[in-house]
């Protein structure tokens, strides 16, 4: 028995060493740095680093830009998260239907945005959103809507980013949902058919409950991913207009790698970690209580 365990440790050792050196140590170092004012000056002369306790965190809570980025990120997660899950579930159900032909083709088409380079996609979307020559405003114009400056108007920039992010990411969740749908035994639907249930009842009482574990997984992954929103606004708007699309990760990146305020940047990272941690806990809790009910 004992030799088995030590053999296991032996085989795990390389992986554990790697994790220890390349994951735990940097995380602990970052945590310690978040209590200092490590910056450009400290890079030059380490003795210019000051231990400042919780000051980074206290400053953070008084920083209007931090609150703005937090608000933007929550806006994005709360709006884009459910929307993305709904779209991917809808697409999965459609593709799983027996009536649809060329399933593989559609699956591929919907999945393409996920694997396309974001930079290339962003350029195309910038043209779509262009206030004067963009195709989106052209279509809206057909219905007599006034042209919208999608990426330049502080109120429309985030919805524009959300639309693009949902389009870019729903294919991935769709594939997971399709896998979940295929695991639901067919005989349940047959039984429902015998009892005369309509499609909505079938969806509500069979598909959704049996898809619950998949949905939990998808929503946690999506939430974590969306809290780390970075590339879309970084390329499309650089956080503007009026910082309305500045995400928390982007703010962290700016502070850390543009201005070299590493201490402050590390503090932002840990606040973000804490938020994601709480979000995940809440989702687990919700799932548990709904399972009991």
């Amino acid at each position: 028995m004992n030799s088995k365990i030590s053999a296991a440790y032996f085989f795990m050792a390389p992986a554990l060493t790697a994790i220890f050196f390349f994951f735990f140590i940097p995380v602990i170092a970052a945590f310690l740095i978040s209590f200092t004012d490590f910056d450009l000056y400290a890079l030059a002369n380490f003795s210019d680093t000051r231990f400042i306790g919780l000051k980074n965190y206290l400053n953070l809570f008084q920083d209007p830009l931090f609150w703005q980025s937090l608000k933007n990120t929550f806006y994005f997660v709360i709006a884009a998260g459910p929307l993305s899950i709904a779209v991917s579930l809808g697409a999965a159900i459609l593709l799983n239907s027996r009536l649809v032909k060329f399933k593989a083709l559609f699956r591929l088409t919907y999945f393409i945005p996920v694997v396309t380079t974001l930079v290339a996609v962003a350029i195309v979307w910038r043209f779509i959103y262009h206030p004067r020559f963009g195709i989106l405003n052209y279509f809206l114009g057909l219905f007599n809507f006034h042209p919208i400056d999608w990426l330049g108007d502080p109120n429309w920039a985030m919805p524009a980013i959300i639309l693009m992010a949902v389009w870019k990411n729903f294919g991935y969740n769709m594939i997971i949902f399709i896998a979940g749908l295929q695991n639901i035994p067919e005989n349940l639907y047959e039984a429902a058919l015998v009892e005369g249930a309509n499609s909505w009842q079938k969806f509500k009482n069979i598909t959704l409950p049996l898809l619950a574990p998949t949905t939990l997984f998808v929503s946690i992954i999506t939430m974590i991913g969306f809290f780390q929103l970075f590339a879309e606004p970084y390329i499309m708007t650089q956080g503007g207009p009026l910082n309305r699309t500045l995400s928390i990760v982007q703010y962290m990146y700016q502070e850390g790698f543009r201005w070299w305020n590493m201490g402050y940047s590390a503090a932002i990272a840990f606040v973000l970690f804490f938020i994601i941690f709480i979000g995940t806990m809440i989702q687990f809790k919700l799932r548990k209580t709904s399972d009991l009910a």
Partner: protein
Amino acid sequence: MRYFLNRYQKINAWILPGIVIFFFLSCNFNNQKQVEVLFWGMGAEGEQVKSLIPGFEKNNPQIKVKVQMIPWTAAQEKLITAYASDNLPDAFQLGNTWIPQFVALDAIVSLDNWIKNSIQINSDNYFRGIWDTNIIDGLIYGIPWYVDTRLLFYRTDVLELAGFNKPPRTWDELYLLSKKINQLFINQEKYAIYLPTNEWAPFVIFGLQANSDLLKENNSYGDFSGPSFLRAFKFLIRFHKEKLAPIGMSQVTNVYQAFANEYFSIYISGPWNIREFKKWMVGELNDKWMTAPLPGPDSTTVGLSLAGGSSLVISKSSNNKEVVWRFFEYLSQPQVQIQFYHLVSDLPAVKSAWQDSTLKNDPYLRAFYEQFQHVVPTPKIAEWEQIAFSKIQQYAEIAARGVMTPDEALKALDAEVDQILEKRRWLLKQKNEKN
């Protein structure tokens, strides 16, 4: 998680062989008799400077210059990470507003001793404002390589229609002209001037013109809410408020096309745009644009602009500083500077190179030569980049959109700037206590 695991395992597997290979390689290099110098250049400069190297190596056969090109967008990150990991090249190109950062890092050396003994490189050969950007606490850390600044690009035909046969020389004239241009295009979505709110430069330029020092008390507090900067800030915000300038940046996806369509007729920009405008202003528009020095606050004061461009610097860690200096002297020869202008269109830093016929005969460059006599550096502190790019820009946009009044915006700006400069104040205090 799995993803990370796989990745780190792979990295781990490469470390030992990597070290072994590196060890052998570095032994090999040390055995060579030739001196090899590593130089980092940025973007187009890094690409094109390669064709100047043979001219240097021909006269210095024992020296080999290796050029590495790094893209502008990642240049600062790359240089600072290279410094942190002790991997800086012998010499590199540095945007002259970045010099204070690298002096604060103690990454580059002062060049005073070499300059003293040099016939080739002498402060008299350079524009005064440009040379000044390289001086920090009385010591010179860089040699100007090429120069740039910002001035007016304007549509001659639109100005004529508005009743101006000369470019504006004062702030009042600029404002009046803009009003007139807007009246020309009534009921059309066109503007007089383009003052992008995502650029800090125009705001800082007009602030400097109004005689503001931008920062105060040995550059340790912000002075943006002071009367001088406030005056300039209000002047510029008025262009946005009165719809003489478009707000936001997504309206103008292509500056050149917008200029050709009279979407705006005046633009404050730099020499890097001359070639682009030449490309877009073709056919009928060919002779319908010109450059002019910036207007000043009143008719008695010249319009200052920013001292921009790149300098050549030597790493503190370099073992070949003497050799690098010889390379710098070569790059500073007037004929090499002219050659470099032909390669990348970067304006020469050495004044005598401007006597070359191609530069002299280019009508668009005349205004630049004049403007270079009146350029000043931005505050020479490591924090300036952050203050300019993140804070000034942010509050300029807030004020342009009317979210805050200019007074409120500049007070809030000063508060944030004071917080950024807290470390600098502490360091200054430490230094004073030591002395």
